[in-house]
């Protein structure tokens, strides 16, 4: 007489393994009608307890019935002429499941051992110095990085007080050719080098706008620089990288 506790079983495969073990059945030669009967009794038992029957159990019941029927029919053969055991897929599934169920037991042992180990509990008392800024995290450059670099370039310029309103002596077109000349000569240029020596803010602004225009026209490309808040402008040929 065996007593079955409901929560012993993780699912239909687990239940079938239980029957196989309990009745010392050969997993490769499962008596399908016997095990189907047991399985159905278990289903009724769950019903009796007014529990929702898991669809997985119903699905397995259907599978068992199907195998049972196929066992009664004339033997099927595969392309090599060998008999197909209608139980083969079920056996495979049972063994596969059993394999991991075993490993779960290994895991349980590991868990048990590990629980005897405690890690350091309180880190709040460790003195820490706020670190200096280290390296750049940026891996690819975006419009936002451009703007930051641009701002830096502006901020590093000494403020010049301009007393009279002058007509801008620089145009986008001029700066476009200024930049293209640069990249034509050396294939690439750092942004900070490009604006080096520009004393008027407006010239840097216009250069930057020119740069954006060129990017938009696919005539230049922009990539990350090893220097913080800087970037590299390089020549593009027909929209492709050099």
């Amino acid at each position: 007489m065996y007593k079955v506790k409901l929560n012993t079983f993780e699912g239909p495969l687990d239940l079938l393994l239980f029957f196989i073990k309990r009745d010392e059945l050969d997993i490769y030669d499962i008596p399908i009608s016997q095990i189907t009967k047991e399985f159905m009794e278990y289903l009724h038992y769950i019903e009796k307890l007014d529990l929702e029957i898991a669809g997985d159990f119903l699905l397995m019941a259907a599978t068992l019935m199907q195998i049972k029927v196929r066992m009664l029919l004339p033997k099927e053969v595969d392309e090599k002429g060998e008999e197909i055991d209608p139980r083969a897929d079920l056996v495979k599934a049972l063994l596969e499941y059993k394999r991991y169920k075993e490993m779960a037991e290994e895991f349980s042992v590991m868990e048990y051992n590990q629980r005897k180990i405690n890690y350091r509990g309180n880190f709040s008392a460790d003195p820490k110095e706020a670190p200096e800024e280290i390296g750049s995290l940026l891996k690819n450059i975006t419009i936002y990085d451009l703007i930051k670099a641009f701002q830096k370039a502006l901020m590093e310029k000494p403020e010049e007080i301009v007393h009279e309103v002058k007509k801008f002596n620089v145009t986008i077109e001029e700066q476009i050719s200024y930049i293209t000349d640069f990249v034509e000569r050396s294939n690439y240029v750092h942004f900070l080098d490009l604006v080096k020596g520009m004393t008027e803010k407006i010239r840097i602004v216009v250069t930057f706008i020119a740069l954006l225009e060129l990017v938009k026209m696919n005539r230049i490309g922009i990539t990350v620089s090893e220097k913080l808040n800087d970037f590299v402008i390089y020549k593009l040929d027909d929209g492709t990288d050099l």
Partner: protein
Amino acid sequence: MEQIYKSIIESLIFASDEPIGATEIVKAIKEIDGEDISVSTKDVEETVDYLNQCYKDNDRAFRIIRIANGFTFATKPEYAKYIGYLSSEKSRRRLSQAALETLAIIAYKQPITKPEIETIRGVNSDYIINSLLEKNLITIKGRAETIGRPLLYATTDEFLMYFGLNKITDLPKPREVEEIMKDSEFIEQKRKIMMNEIEEELENDVDSGENEFD
């Protein structure tokens, strides 16, 4: 006091989540080994002094310090800059909950404007958006065609790398997350059937078994 309690006191201070008082230590020991065990708070104090002398003699990088009426371990101040570097690295790697939330909104609704993000989160998000921009997890993807032409935010390639995704469409769909949680009542029923939920006291677990250290 027996010699073994020096180690037990050391392990208790080491593993405690917060500074632990001498009284607590004595209580823990007596609770496990019995009331008649001769360990006093004075013994604890003396043990801490003894341990600190050991650490000093052996040039250990840490000490037990007295803080908030208790004992706790702390590394020596001369290593502060190295530790500071580490913790800054970690804060770079880890995203705060608020940042993660904002990032998620942007990831799922991109391109999205700040007002839209703030409507969803219900709080001002300037700081978080800036820090995400700084970490290069999001970027500006142009402007919306609405009034004021607010900036549009979207995630970056770095974002994908950070989360181990190939492309943005690989993000789990909210529907999929819901699916995992679907029909929670049914699942709860099942859980009761399927799970052996046994609450165990640690003391039941500890046997005299293997010691993997020695």
